């Protein structure tokens, strides 16, 4: 019996990333159902053997899931994002990491940070009305400033000296986005000027991707370490998933973000791969109804 989405059940959930004999990664999950039973599920992570590489995404999710939470609430998206910031600091060898959420209308706020100083620096951008994460959000591409002292006269005349005053020498901002859906940005801070290595850049982009998918999927999946939609989809169906997002948005007359959630929910509840559901929607053999759950 699978628990319904949104139903919380008591008892610990455990997820473990395992490598099968064929080299593919699998998630081995055990979770309790509402009638007190325990269900074990072995899930494939599709697309994890592209170019012989295993899924970094799954590894990061499990790291975040295993990260001890600080004081305060254990649950919720904000707590999960804070743990992501802590993991990112270690993995990226950063002085700090922050995540801010923004909307097109300009309302914004810091959602999570690895430490108090990073939180202050995140807030600085909104106070001053300028900064790399705002630019990343606006331009829909990463904004990488390997040397803040070079940016004072051009890009961020107030933010640069202020951030440097807090000991930041370099900032790398990555938008949290998926096509037209824009959620905010993830900032990586370093004390000393210098470019992010290629490997660190890829890893930071993966953190941003994981954060985006978590924000879109909700906390339920985040706690489980379940792979949210879109990340490990077979390469050939990736664009169909995005097309299906647009179609469902119109079908159900909801926002694009909600359309993504409904697609995912449908796939989960009917135990079907998201890419297959997407293909059915694109070929018109499946239409989501407004009261479809």
């Amino acid at each position, binding site marked *: 019996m699978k628990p319904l989405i949104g139903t919380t059940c008591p008892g610990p959930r455990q997820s473990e990333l395992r490598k099968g004999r064929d080299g593919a990664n699998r998630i081995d999950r055990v979770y309790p159902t509402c009638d007190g039973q325990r269900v074990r599920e072995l899930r494939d992570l599709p697309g994890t053997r592209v*170019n012989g590489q295993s899924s970094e995404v799954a590894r990061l999710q499990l790291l975040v899931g295993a990260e001890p939470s600080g004081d305060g609430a254990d649950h919720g998206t904000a707590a999960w994002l804070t743990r992501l910031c802590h993991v990112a600091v270690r993995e990226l060898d950063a002085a700090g990491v922050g995540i801010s959420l923004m909307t097109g209308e300009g309302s914004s706020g810091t959602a999570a940070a690895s430490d108090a100083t990073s939180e202050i620096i995140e807030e600085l951008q909104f106070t001053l009305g300028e900064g790399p994460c705002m630019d990343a959000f606006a331009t*829909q591409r990463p904004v990488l*400033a390997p040397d803040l002292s070079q940016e004072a006269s051009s890009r961020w005349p107030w933010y640069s000296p202020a951030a440097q005053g807090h000991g930041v020498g370099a900032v790398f901002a990555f938008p949290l986005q998926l096509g*037209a859906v824009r959620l905010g940005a993830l900032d990586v801070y370093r004390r000393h000027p210098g470019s992010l290595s290629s490997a660190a850049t890829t890893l930071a982009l993966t953190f941003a991707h994981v954060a985006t998918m978590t924000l879109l999927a909700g906390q339920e999946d985040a706690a489980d370490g379940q792979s949210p939609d879109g990340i490990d989809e077979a390469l050939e169906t990736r664009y169909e998933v995005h097309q299906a997002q647009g179609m469902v948005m119109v079908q159900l007359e909801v926002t694009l973000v909600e359309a993504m959630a409904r697609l995912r929910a449908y796939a989960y509840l009917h135990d079907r791969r998201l890419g297959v559901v997407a293909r059915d929607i694109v070929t018109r053999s499946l239409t989501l109804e407004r009261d479809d759950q």
Partner: protein
Amino acid sequence: MSTLSAERVAKVFVEVTDTLVDEFDVIEFLELVTSRASELVGSSAAGLLLADENGRLQFMAASDEQAHLVELFQVQAREGPCQDCYRQGTPVSTSDLREASDRWPLFAPRAIAAGFRSVHAFPLRLRKEVIGALNLFGTSTGEIPAADVQIVQALADLATIGLLQERAVRHSEIVTEQLQGALNSRVTIEQAKGALAQRHSISVDEAFQLLHSYARTHNLRLGDVARSALTQPSEAPDLTST
């Protein structure tokens, strides 16, 4: 000696560089490059793939964007001439796809079924790095003449420079920023295709044409129209109302 007239080649290059203005649209730019490359050597179709941060080739633009053709490009994320080209950093071609089924068991049969017989892939090179591939298909067998190969490679190199917006790239930051921007633009377009297809009860291919014609008629960038259609539908009533 190239079979192409110098004048014709020059026209194409001027046209491509003319699009590199401040507010250019990256997907439209890549479409232009693929169309012109295809026309220059008389191939039937061309497409362009870029590698994402994980080194996976993602379809970005084609001379003729139809779903069955796009699949041919997408399958090359796993295997095919673009994959080989990307890894080796050199042009890869096959003059007769019917002999390539061992080499590309996934790609070759599909390309043949789509009516193609020859294929050529050119690397998008940035100094020592390869960021993607330009792919040309022909319905007849045969090679592209060597001199023409040089011209297409030059066009591919121009596409790379245009994409990265710097004549001499000083920082790897620019590469990451521009590529991620381009990759995300493509996702937005796919989302918009779906929304418009649903809205007007048309195919996603027709929806793509609609996006293009709307952008042209209103002198807007393709990416901006796609984004509008998804997030501010009331601003583009001709496009978004039934």
